[in-house]
């Protein structure tokens, strides 16, 4: 795996382009907060697509890599705040994997800001809106993710048994 410099893969932002953000939200906190954002009608950008998991600790690093490979420009993991996990400490497992994963994607030539982990409690509807807007804004500045470098390096790096990036 060789790091690709950001400048080399930065491509011009096409007209009307909007980032695609895949959000893995835990059932108890972040997903509930996203529902509450709807109930409160906290209007925000439509770049986020939420995939519900029971716990942020369920987010397999391969889910994240797969999302980038399949066309996501950013991946957001929404977890409970420290100490709030419905399953004791799934969020800290997510944090451990996240830290490694940021380094892994950087090595794959993906800007680490494209992956975010946020603690969002079930009551923090406003935080869902704010995080979505902030992430969208950052990705708009970064532009679309060039997958050419990433996919080829992922292919050369991946081992046949698929026992890759585990945190």
């Amino acid at each position, binding site marked *: 795996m060789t790091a690709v410099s950001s400048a080399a893969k930065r491509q011009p932002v096409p007209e009307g382009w909007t980032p*695609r953000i*895949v959000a893995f939200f835990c059932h*108890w*906190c972040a997903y509930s907060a*996203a*529902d*509450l*954002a*709807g*109930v409160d*009608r906290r*209007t*925000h950008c*439509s770049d986020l*697509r939420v*995939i*519900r*998991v*029971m*716990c942020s*600790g*369920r*987010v*397999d690093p*391969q*889910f994240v*890599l*797969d*999302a*980038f*490979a*399949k*066309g*996501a*420009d950013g991946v957001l993991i929404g977890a409970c705040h420290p100490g*709030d996990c*419905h*399953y*004791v*400490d*799934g969020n800290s*497992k997510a944090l451990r994997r996240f830290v490694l994963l940021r380094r892994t994607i950087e090595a794959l030539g993906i800007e680490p800001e494209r992956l975010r982990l946020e603690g969002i*409690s*079930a*009551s*923090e509807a*406003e935080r869902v809106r704010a995080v979505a807007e902030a992430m969208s804004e950052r990705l708009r500045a970064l532009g*679309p993710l*060039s*997958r*050419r470098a*990433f*996919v080829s390096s*992922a*292919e050369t790096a991946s081992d*046949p*048994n*698929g*026992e890759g990036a585990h*945190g």
Partner: protein
Amino acid sequence: MADAPRIGVYVCHCGANISATVDVAAVAADAESLPNVVAARHYTYMCSDAGLALVQADIRELGLNRVVVAACSPHLHEPTFRRALASAGLNPHLLQMANIREQDAWIHTDRESATRKACDLVRAAVHRVALHTPLDIRKAAVRPDVLVIGGGIAGMHAALTVANAGKHVYLVEREFSIGGQMARYDKTFPTLDCSLCIQAPKMTAVRTHENITLWTGSEVEEVYGHVGDYRARIRRRARYVDENLCVGCLQCVDACCYDGDLIPDAFNMGLSGRKPIYLPFAHAVPTVVAVDPGSCLNFTRGGCDRPCTDVCGRDALDFDQTPWVEEIEVGSIVVATGFEPFDARKATEYGYGIYPNVYTSMEVERLINASGPTAGEVILRDGTRPQAIGVIYCVGSRDERYNPWCSRVCCMTALKLSHLLCERTGAEVYNFYIDMRAAGKGQEEFYQRVLNDGVQFVRGKVAEVCDWALDPSEEGKLVIRVEDTMTGYVRRVPVDMVVLTVGMSPRSDSDELRRTLNVGCSGDGFYRERHAKLAPVGTLTDGIFIAGCCQGPKDISDSVSQAGSAAAEAIALSVKGSYDLDPITARVVAESCSGCRVCMPLCPFGAIGYAEPGGKCEINAALCTGCGACVAGCPSGAIRQGMFDDAQVFAELSGLLLGAGSGSSGSASGRVPPAVSLQPSAEATGSALR
């Protein structure tokens, strides 16, 4: 897969909730072109009988074996649609919902992008549901006993209702007496019944009920388990008095040799003092004294003559008592921990804590109470009797600086106190209000009654309370400065006493209990109900119900109604005796397990064991809660999870991102099981099936 997927897609308008922002017809049309989709329809209300019948008819007539419903959050109607599938003979887990209301239509305004998002979410669901498999619902036994946390009016009513249904209740109260805030009130609005006359019989009933175990001076320390099988650790503080021996004769209180300043009596809002050995209040239940180790000389000076022990004819004092823990097992929990009055010190402009004659409404409740510190006489802190009284509404409520919400009871509390103060003192009473909210039954009528008492009403938010006299009539008085928005004049009203009608705040420690119980709070800090209309006493955690002011400000009538409702939910669980557990548990595929045991420390519930002879890990389904931490952590991909299997999530991702990006030709995942590569990757599969 035994049967090729035959998927039906149903897009809900939700009246106009969804269809106003999302082009539902376009979403259905888009879904029709997706692989394995046999039918795609849109309908006004999918959750209605007619909507459900539509799905059920398609299941029977078109032989559907998978269903996608694009509608509201699965938190809301997933159970509804699962039931519909089941009654049409399909396993309820062959359903996937796409949340296009809360997470799409309600947060976007641009129709085009909202519709595009809905199409993406539906496509993800279609890809995912193809890999759903029938799952068997595990039934768990429900323990019949119920834990009620909080012994205020809501907790007592819930406990009595459950106990009257023949189920055993543990009622845990932090203070040394039950009764809660209501025990402080003199009268209740709008009928002006004596508060204690309503409550005292209930308190006695709680104490004497054969089905209620009452623990005062106790707190819930830890709760673990799940619906039907909660285990709770209750920490019981030492009261240094044997509850079974003390008869509340108070001879020990008289005999106590404490010689320091009296300790502010919390029940009387600090308006009177008590000794280190005390009865929480005159009508406390249980009528048992308690010793405060923070002031008792036996603790602070390492010993005294203990005259209390000498006078006690029943040998009830026990200075060797230590806190202890009770462990109980219950099927469900009712949380009724109440509220905290807003701390009036925060609103500095009203001078509470600065001017002695500024009182909070809670203090006035004690001041006018026949069993209060002045036996109901309104005598001010400086010993005088007020000739003019100003009652200020909305203190700490409807104020962006403190609590933005309306506390719902303060207008009526202020009217009640105005009426009582007028009656007891003959003083001129001025009310300063923003809007008069007397919405409950009999409340507008009570307002009219108080208007006829001759009480003065000034509409306007008070700017400040000060003691700065501009003319002799204001000398020695508190001056209320306010803009009277009815007349358009700025007024200065001199009074002898100011009453701040304080609103309701969440309890300052509500966050700790929220974590212990794994329930959520709304943005205001009160516990959040599962759904305001569909499950107003439920929480996101099954088997935990909320009642009273811990859920939000409300009056006594509403608290009692809600407590009855929470009790009914607890009784329903208890009577049914079993509960359907979501089959989202994980299991190890033995052939793939390398026996590395990476998963074992990941499980917070100790559900994973290691079988020595075969060298494989095993998951105990009874302990597994389905968090999926082990599934994500298994380096061999040997752990599968119901409803959240790797393959299902990868499929959801594929659907979601279909057509996105430039390099989306391949999957980065090397360990998708072979079955998944059959996952339709092109429209070809769909057209072949159609």
